[in-house]
């Protein structure tokens, strides 16, 4: 079976004068229907990577293969058809004058006949729970609602891959939860491959696998539980430290014998209770 995304020996430099490569000899593979989170502090090259995969930056060194199609000047639009992208700033990606216009934008670009377009716009809005807002203007929407509209715009064109470039980082906690819940639900329904670039611990925890990027290089990869074991070192990797990991570290330092693997809330609570009972 073809892989969703294959990146081989990718390097990228913004300009001749730049001191170092934004991406340095990176290789990895993402399977179909997989959810992969990419973490790294600001300036580590995450966004550059996402834009490169969608052909939004010129490909200089290396190979990018999306759904078996090798990215090149000639089949740029074919590759972009496989991918939907949600960017960081909710305002700066809202093209349409109203919600339904914005959702239709991708369909208009692909020349979809109007009758079908109306149907697909309605369906997409329903999936992100924004039907009631169809004729609203963006000025009257919250950040989280705008990001859900952006998701609807992507669902409408039915790509197989969803790339989230810090899509929740400018939202308030409520907006972030809503958007994340929508993504989880879409993933379950459509089996899209999801590549999410994030600092958010909940978003990272939703992934099947986490890639850690620093200085334009792939430094680590593993399941969330494996990566969360780094505890307080995670903050240097650009991710929030899971609360339970912080507490476990504090307790270990104080002399409490805890296992070295990552424990979520209920696991840590149970482990601590067992220790308490053995006192």
């Amino acid at each position, binding site marked *: 079976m073809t892989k969703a995304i294959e990146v081989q020996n990718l390097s990228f430099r913004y300009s001749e004068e730049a001191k170092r490569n934004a991406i340095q000899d990176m290789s990895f593979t993402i399977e179909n229907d997989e959810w992969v989170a990419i973490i790294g502090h600001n300036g580590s090259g995450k966004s550059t990577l996402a834009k490169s995969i*969608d052909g939004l930056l010129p490909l200089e060194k290396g190979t990018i293969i999306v759904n078996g199609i090798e990215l090149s000047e000639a089949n740029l639009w074919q590759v*972009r058809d496989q991918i939907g992208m949600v*960017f960081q700033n909710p305002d*700066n990606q809202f*093209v349409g004058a109203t919600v339904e216009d914005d959702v239709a934008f991708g369909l208009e*670009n692909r020349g979809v006949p*109007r009758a079908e377009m109306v149907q697909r716009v309605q369906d997409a809005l329903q999936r992100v729970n924004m039907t009631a807002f169809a004729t609203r203007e963006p*000025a009257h929407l919250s950040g989280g609602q705008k990001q859900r509209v952006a998701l609807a715009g992507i669902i409408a064109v039915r790509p197989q891959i969803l790339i989230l470039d810090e899509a929740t980082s400018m939202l308030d906690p409520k907006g972030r939860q809503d958007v994340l819940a929508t993504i989880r639900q879409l993933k379950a329904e459509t089996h899209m491959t999801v590549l999410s670039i994030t600092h958010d611990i909940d978003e990272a925890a939703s992934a099947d696998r986490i890639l850690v990027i620093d200085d334009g290089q792939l430094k680590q990869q593993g399941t969330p539980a494996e990566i969360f074991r780094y505890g307080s070192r995670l903050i240097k990797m650009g991710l929030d430290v899971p609360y339970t990991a912080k507490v476990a570290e504090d307790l270990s330092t104080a002399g409490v014998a805890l296992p070295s693997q990552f424990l979520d809330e209920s696991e840590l609570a149970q482990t601590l209770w067992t220790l308490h009972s053995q006192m």
Partner: protein
Amino acid sequence: MNKLLIGRYIPGNSFVHRLDPRTKLLASFYYIGIIFLADNWQTYLVLLLFTLAAIAMSKIKLGFFWKGVRPLIWLILFTVLLQVFFTQGGHVYWHWGIFTLSQYGLINGTYIFVRFVLIIFMSTLLTLTTPPLALADAVEYILYPLKYVHFPVYEVALMLSIALRFVPTLMDETEKIMNAQRARGVDFGEGSLMQRIKSLVPLLIPLFVSSFNRADDLATAMEARGYRGGEGRSKFRILKWHAADRWVGLSFIVLTIILIVLR
């Protein structure tokens, strides 16, 4: 900031609100054309009644229409005075150097004044009852024939709709930056002209920077969503003529005939 005319759409569901934006836009242009048919008090009276009837059907208070006249009042008065003092004929009431106050001058001045007010009332009726976006659609429709002389109609229409969509965003941004600079001790609109101009620098530079950043982001997002120029695009927004639009057309034909008969 609230004085900006473009945002002054007043939501409603009156007969005028429900008309097709193309009807309203074309009718406004047509109205400006036929107003020049009027040349006596009967014709002006007919036009005045027609305009007041249109305003009444919009169910918007007359006060909003006066607000449309107010910013232009000096220009209107200037033009009216020119007419009054430089038109000759009829009984002369007063004379001084090159200035003459004559009967025809007064009559012409009054006509010009009424003409201005009527044109402003009618175009204000258009903007008060039509969302800017619908207006943009109407403009696109009217520009459509230019496609055959290779005028980029789709691109211009898209630009127009994006520009309208970003008006509130940029107004928020302007207010926010003004507040931030006020908090740093800037007095906007105080002091000498030089000081006032200088105080705009800390507003304009951040506004330009942020607008360029937005434009850059937007271009990337549009490309990612498959935008490759106007060719081969289909359209989601469409306009439909209704019976009401035909009635409006008919009423304008009748109006034209009456004006021609009465002049």
